[in-house]
């Protein structure tokens, strides 16, 4: 059967990666992948996805960030139960870290197929930019801050930053883990402790964010990949962006360690969060389609597909038992950290989209309004945490 799959993977690296899914699905099954890409970000795509599911015209499968987004759809019985597939394939055993599968589980049943691990905790540095400015490539955040004035003098943008709200919020998240430390972060994000959020650790985070704001002042691009492009072309020194940026460097033909450097956890706290993408399968009343859905779910986690996909996407596979030796230096770094268990749960799994939206709003405002002081922003942040659910 034709299976329509919606997703918002439209940038160069993403599109190449998703093409791997399509290829595998078309080749290995009797079914046909109908691509339903929606450009923009999840923000553009989600209303469409949700209203179609609600409107009784569901797609065959759809990307959604796993976590709490889908809970209500599951409750309303709109999503296909994948437990039998998961059991047959032994997902419990192979998915690593297992928190990924937990995020797909609702009342003991499994409703989604995780396909990759994405971690926000990276900073990407352009060798060319630092060379041009006569600086060594920094190895942690503090060095970077120190080198920033030189970059500015050389006519470079020290920090590239897209204008989309999720980018501001994401960069802040990365800084909070790296600068405030894991415990403080956990207290705020998991336990929703507003006192910590208003405390001194977080004050440092906000101060760092204020510095970053200054460094990114001249970065007039919208999309994250345009910002990445600034780094690739050496116009900007660095970008704080998740591992999906990897794909862009790859498409541009650059090599890690030679043309660019990646620093997990800003080189301060080498931790990775384990957010990721997952596919959900809205319920259909057509047995043929349902069969295709289950086959796709199984296929998405199969070793070859995982390898092919994640290599293109620049993300990490969701199973620890596969050979990723062909991955580049940055990915290898990530795999190591993952294997060592230095992981933290993603914000997606802890905070509701509503709270995340509020944080995004705050961050984007803070990021774009130089007169918004760090202290004010921290107070507002603590407020949101106090009311978070």
């Amino acid at each position: 059967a034709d299976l329509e799959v919606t997703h918002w993977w439209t940038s160069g690296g993403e599109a190449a990666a998703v093409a791997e899914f399509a290829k595998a699905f078309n080749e290995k099954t009797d079914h046909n992948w109908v691509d339903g890409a929606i450009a923009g970000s999840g923000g553009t795509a989600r209303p469409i996805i949700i209203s179609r599911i609600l409107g009784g015209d569901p797609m065959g499968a759809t990307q959604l960030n796993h976590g709490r987004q889908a809970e209500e759809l599951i409750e309303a019985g709109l999503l296909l139960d994948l437990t039998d597939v998961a059991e047959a394939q032994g997902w419990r055993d192979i998915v690593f870290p297992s928190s990924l599968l937990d995020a797909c589980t609702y009342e003991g049943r499994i409703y989604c197929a995780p396909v990759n691990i994405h971690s926000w905790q990276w900073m990407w540095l352009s060798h060319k930019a630092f060379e041009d400015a006569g600086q060594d490539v920094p190895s942690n955040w503090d060095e970077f801050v120190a080198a920033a004035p030189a970059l500015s003098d050389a006519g470079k943008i020290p920090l590239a930053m897209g204008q989309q709200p999720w980018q501001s919020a994401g960069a802040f998240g990365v800084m909070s883990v790296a600068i405030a430390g894991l415990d403080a972060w956990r207290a705020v994000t998991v336990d929703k402790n507003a006192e910590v959020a208003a405390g001194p650790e977080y004050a440092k985070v906000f101060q760092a964010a204020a510095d970053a704001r200054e460094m990114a002042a001249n970065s007039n691009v919208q999309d994250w990949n345009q910002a990445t492009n600034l780094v690739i072309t050496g116009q900007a020194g660095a970008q704080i962006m998740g591992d999906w940026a990897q794909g862009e460097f790859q498409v541009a033909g650059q090599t890690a360690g030679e043309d660019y450097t990646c620093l997990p956890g800003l080189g301060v706290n080498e931790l990775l969060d384990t957010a990721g993408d997952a596919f959900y399968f809205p319920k259909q009343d057509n047995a043929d389609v349902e069969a295709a859905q289950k086959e796709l779910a199984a296929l998405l986690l199969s070793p070859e597909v995982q390898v092919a996909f994640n290599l293109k996407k620049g993300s990490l596979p969701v199973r620890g038992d596969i050979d990723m030796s062909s991955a580049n230096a940055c990915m290898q770094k990530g795999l190591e950290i993952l294997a060592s268990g230095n992981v933290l749960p993603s914000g997606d799994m802890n905070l509701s989209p509503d709270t995340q939206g509020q944080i995004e709003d705050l961050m984007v405002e803070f990021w774009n309004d130089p007169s918004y002081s760090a202290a004010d922003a921290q107070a507002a942040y603590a407020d949101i945490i106090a009311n978070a659910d």
Partner: protein
Amino acid sequence: MEGPRGPKPRRRLSPRNIMLYGTLIVVALYYALPLYVMIVTSLKGMPEIRLGNVFAPPVEITFEPWVKAWSEACTGINCEGLSRGFWNSIQILVPSVFLSIAIASVNGYALANWRFKGSEVFFTILIFGAFIPYQVMIYPIVIILREMGDGISAVTGTEFRLMGSIWGLVLVHTVFGMPILTLLFRNYFTSVPEELFKAARVDGAGFWGIYFRIMLPMSLPIFVVAMILQVTGIWNDFLFGVIYTKPETYPMTVQLNNIVNSVQGVKEYNVNMAATLLTGLVPLVIYFVSGKLFVRGIAAGAVKG
């Protein structure tokens, strides 16, 4: 007798004329500039764009961006350019324009000539409807479309979905086009002399007879206006197109948005501009061709009331 004779001599370059044409030309530049930028940019290659400014004419004209925008640009793994969206848009446009104008003109006619108790109330609600932000109604309409689709399926015993099909979108366009169009038609039909309507009734024509045989043939200007408004409105719609359709039926604007926002590496401004121009082509052509009729029709239908 001596003295002035014949027409008063006029200088071509009188201060009045300089003011008049000066203002017009300056303003015209403001209006024409974006089109110029679009055309010029769409004919440049990427290197040229990076070097020069937006207003510089192309050194080397290339049509490649047009070709790419039409048939090669990618969204996700589809690389069919705008071509598919174009045909979808046509398929959406034709029935939507037809249906919305048909319904609105009948409504306007009933409101103007066959008032019944309460008809004005419904009309008032309709006009208020023109001001309701669409966002208010997106969600409930999803549910209405689903239920209607189920209803039709149950009645006909076939699998029929309004949501996600072209017909759902046609329905949505008809509904949201109704307020302004009905107002337009009502005002127009009200300005048709009432005696004509009375004469036709004496001649034994009924509701439909008068509509088709008397009113319709007289209403070309207002139909032209309605058509132009609907064609541009529907062709340019993004919000409904993106929410009430699916990838196979995406209209051109959604496709355009996808292409423009699917940045792969660098932003290909020339392709984006070509895609933009291609998307705007249908309404642009309609405006360039029917500008005069449009003004006349507006005078006939919109201004009175």
